[in-house]
């Protein structure tokens, strides 16, 4: 089968396997991280048609026909001069520590900011609060999601 990742079709040899392993081990997209395998930690979050999906909870086959975005594919809007996506920029300015959870937080925030250009603190809690961070960067994440929305608004 073929998966649509970064807007391009990628041939998959083991479509029956969990998406997280197909992305990482078959396609080499290591920016999708395994953390728990039961959909709790959120490290493996990718976007399917712009919505967060825990890639340990679906097979590659189930994602046929969906547009997948991993951390590697998160780019600034077409035609923009910016190097980084607003969420990446916010996390560069105010970083986390080990970064294993980072892709999940970044992609979850990207989806939120896309949907809610001016998210409330409650919306940030509801969205980002579903992902773990063992290094304890929760207060940074709260701040960064709001900052990312601000950067996105400024760039418009």
């Amino acid at each position, binding site marked *: 089968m073929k998966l649509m990742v970064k807007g391009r079709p990628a041939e998959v040899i083991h479509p029956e396997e969990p998406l997280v392993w197909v992305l990482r081990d078959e396609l080499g997209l*290591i920016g999708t991280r395994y953390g728990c395998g039961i959909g709790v930690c959120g490290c493996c979050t990718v976007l399917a048609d712009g919505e967060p999906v825990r890639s340990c909870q679906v097979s590659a086959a189930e994602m046929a026909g969906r547009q997948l975005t991993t951390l590697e594919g998160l780019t600034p809007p077409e035609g923009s001069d910016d190097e980084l996506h607003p969420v990446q920029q916010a996390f560069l300015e105010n970083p986390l520590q080990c970064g294993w959870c980072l892709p999940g937080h970044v992609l979850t925030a990207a989806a939120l900011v896309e949907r809610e250009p001016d998210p409330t603190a409650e919306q940030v809690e509801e969205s980002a609060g579903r992902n*773990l961070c063992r290094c304890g960067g929760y207060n940074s994440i709260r701040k960064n999601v709001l900052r990312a929305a601000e950067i996105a608004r400024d760039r418009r």
Partner: protein
Amino acid sequence: MSLEPAGLESAADSAAPKPRAKRRTTRRRVLIGAASGTGLLVVGAAIALNLRRPRLAQVIQERGTGEQTSPAPQVWFELTGNAITLFVPKVEMGQGVHTAYAQIALEELALAPDQLAVRQANTARGFDGGTLFTFGSSSVSAMFTPLRTAAATVQQMLTREAAAQLGVPQDQLVAADGRFTVSGTDRSRAFTEVVAAKSGPWEAPAEPPELKPSSAFTRIGRDLTRVDMRDKLTGTAVYGYDARVDGMRYGAVARPPRFGATLRAGRGPSTADVVTVIDVQAGFAGVVAATRTKARAALAALEVEWEGGTTAGSAEVDAMLTADRGAVLRREGNLPRAMSAPGAVLVEASYRTPLAAHGHLEPMAALVAVTPDAPGAAPGSGRIEAWVPTQAPDTVVSALRELLGEEREIVLHPTLLGGSFGRKGSQDTAIDAARLSAAAGVPVHVGWTREEDLQHGIYRPPTHTRLRGTVDPDGRLRGVEQHSASGDIIWSVTSLPEPVRDILGFDPGTLLGQFLPYRLDAYRVVNQREQLPIPSGPWRGLGLLPNTFALESFVDELAAAAGRDPLELRLANLPDTDDGRRLANVLRRAADVAGWGTPLAAGRGRGVACSLDLGTAVAQVVEVSVEQGRAKVHRVVAAVDPGLVVHPAGAALQAQGSIVMGLSSTLLEKLTMRDGAVVESNFDTYPILTMADTPPIEVVFVASDGIPRGMGEPVIGPVAAAVANAVFTATGERLRDLPLRPSNP
């Protein structure tokens, strides 16, 4: 088969290792690489293992990781005509050491931050493993001066050479942003151009370089963009679980159903798709397959039989851990007299902390490529290359040699670590991958499942502490008798013979946070080392959090018994010593920021606690309420005195992270043993702190002097006690076991 890692940069890729014979050592132990016809300049400085844990240092020496000062170069700058590179001889696990080292180097090197490439050192470049060992919050404190010395030496050599090339005296050169400019002219030359144009060997300066006084710092103490973050944000950063190499396959390994169980028999087919490796003598059964999922399926189909091991449950483990005997660690004053001082109030209390996991979000992993022996070559001569997320590269190399042959050439690339907190100082995963790679003849990656990680850990051991103490009605502390007991921490990761450990009678890891910092007429501390049938070892701060929970809760109990304010009682009993003054200072600062003594909303209480670990004084004030049988933390204020703060933003993250991890231990974390195994298997049954339970955390740094001290662990010390003390204030209920489980209000 190519062993070039896909997408994995390593120091060895950029330049061949330089033969050691060509280096020479000056009296100041600054090392200069020979130029041999190229402009290449390599400068390194040897460092002393300047450990602030004397007993740990002793143990590490005994383990044979090297002399106090290694003759091998330990931090390297490499300058070529194209780039200026700092190879960091410590591993990056999120603590920010690559950034802190860059910052220290940039203080003495006239470069813009983006002109200094920062890369992870590995064992192929002459870095001895002992230096790469990253532990004990010691990276910045140990390297602060050696690194600046090396950087200043580079700057001095470049300046001298640039002056010669430009034909002007050195004092007419202005160096900034990687470029020398002749004063008052537009003549200039980039550092890299100076290196490229150099002919003949570089020579070390005759005089030691002068280091900037702290008053002239322009980098240290200010912020710098983290050097690891861009790669982490774009998906190019490589952790141990991410390591890839051509031709690799995936391994899975059978785990015993009970701690201590041994393999009696194992059977499984080897097919075109699956290699089965069974070594009963080694207690090893594993498989290699084309994907992780196929490897796990093949593992599940293996027939393995285990025997022996412990059948202990949590209640039995707790019963084994009773603090009533052991080695006397401290005996001061006349205890019977202090305990029966007229008018003094006697308080007795007993505290427990549970078995707990590290919960690093990147599970254990390793990639090992054992090259099959060449035809006709001696058996066991094939080269080994390994990519391991490890705090202790040296012990991984030793373990691989022991397993596969002492004469092997081994290159170990420390990868990024997705958290560790002490867990990734072990060799277990690298050994798994090495056994499988050697047997299968291909590179093998072993990445643990979360279930394996949680159920086959090297845990924070449970502790039990019993305290008796007296306090005068005016709040003066008189005598304390302390019995503490803990499972092993350091002994589990050292190779000291058992009789030596027995004679010592306690585990050095339990010393952290073991002693009350207050003035006492008499103080007796007895520590019991308990060999539990559960693997236990280093966890962030070692004994610091469990010990401080007991001691700082008990001080609160003494304050309550005397009817004194717990902050005032602490301040009144701290000694007039450097440590005492620093603790008093952070206590006052935290109390001030938190508004100690000001009114709180109904149902809320404040608690305070402090600790001093690795030279860093920490005080915390927390605000708590109890809702539906759970302590809810509304606010944490931490005042931290680590001496000198090198990277404020990084230090603040370390403090925030320590507090969040400490809150997680305080409120949630406990592993249960049943039939010799851990019951909890994943983050659904072993929850760790989430955003919803994370309060606003304010961190205030108190910079007391010019010496940087530990930042990775000390801040975790007071968290549990501060919360328990706040629960007492809020509800009147004194909780003495972690995690805190308040009665329903």
